[in-house]
């Protein structure tokens, strides 16, 4: 499989002692943005993965410890945020201004 699993929801079955999960949601005007394209860029700015946010605006990546950048693309606009991830759960929000 290479397609993204359903975004958001439970982390049951995910071993947070070994996995580096980066997750969060995309917001605009005080509401979550469904159907936004969120991509994960590595420390050099190269594309690593992309998912489409859930109806609740959620996204989730399984990465590795280190520096990453999240960038969202949606008809209402774009947002970007750098994140320094560690093993376990790393949560953040992308706000489209």
């Amino acid at each position, binding site marked *: *499989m*290479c397609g993204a699993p359903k975004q958001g929801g439970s982390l049951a079955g995910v071993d947070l002692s070994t996995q580096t999960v980066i997750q969060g949601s995309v917001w605009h005007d005080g509401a979550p943005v469904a159907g936004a394209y969120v*991509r994960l860029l590595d420390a050099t700015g*190269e594309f690593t*993965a*992309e998912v489409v946010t859930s109806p609740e605006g959620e996204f989730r*990546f399984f990465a590795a410890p280190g520096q990453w950048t999240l960038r969202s693309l949606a*008809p209402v606009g774009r947002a970007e945020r750098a994140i320094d991830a560690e093993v376990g759960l790393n949560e953040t929000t992308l706000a489209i201004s």
Partner: protein
Amino acid sequence: MSRSDVLVTADWAQEHLGDPGIVFVEVDEDTSAYDGGHLEGAVKLDWKTDLQDPLRRDFVGREAFEALLSSRGIGNDDTVVLYGGNNNWFAAYAYWYFKLYGHRDVKLVDGGRKKWELDGRPLSKDTVERPATTYRASEPDLSIRAFRDEVVASIGSKNIIDVRSPDEFSGKILAPAHLPQEQAQKGGHVPTAMNIPWSKAANEDGTFKSDEELAKLYAEQGFDEAKPTIAYCRIGERSSHTWFVLRELLGKSDVKNYDGSWVEYGSLVGVPIEK
């Protein structure tokens, strides 16, 4: 073969929805995207349940492919216009697959579902029924498909292009980062492979870069025009995207997709791996 023979714009697609002789086909791994809204009149193909053998790791056979296309109402003379999510990964895989079974006229919608959605173009939830056809496929064209022994034998002699992200190439992660990272295979890449991620061939909206940009990209990365080429990724769909760029857009000869890709190679006993 040139760009206009194999790639159509979203505008072109929107203008030709419903035209006789043109069948729009959405290809995804998760067809819930199609069910939530698709191009008007488009039929769907499920990458996994329709295009993969249910038992072995392989394509469906020629007869099963004929039955599949017949049931979807696709005829041998139809122009098949493919699009999908994930920046057209699975649509490009289906493009390669249709070519493998000898379909004459196949095209991709540039940018796929993503550009269509970002442009705010209309999607339909109507059920699509097309009258069944009697589709006839050719024997698989193995000049565009590489198997593991050929990959091992090509180390140091052919262009081997690893189209995964740099972190997968280096073995830091084992799958694209939207998937859990627990995998059986070893991390790393085929020795002498060039890492030219598929994403370098695409713009952010999922459209392909211009022919000039693409030619420059591969030349800069050391692509040798005199040598045959094998592209691979993790399971063969991102490398279909690059196969499409090299063979269909840039017109290079002797380009194969190794669909066994890293899931197979990284599990083989005794083959060389670099990190």
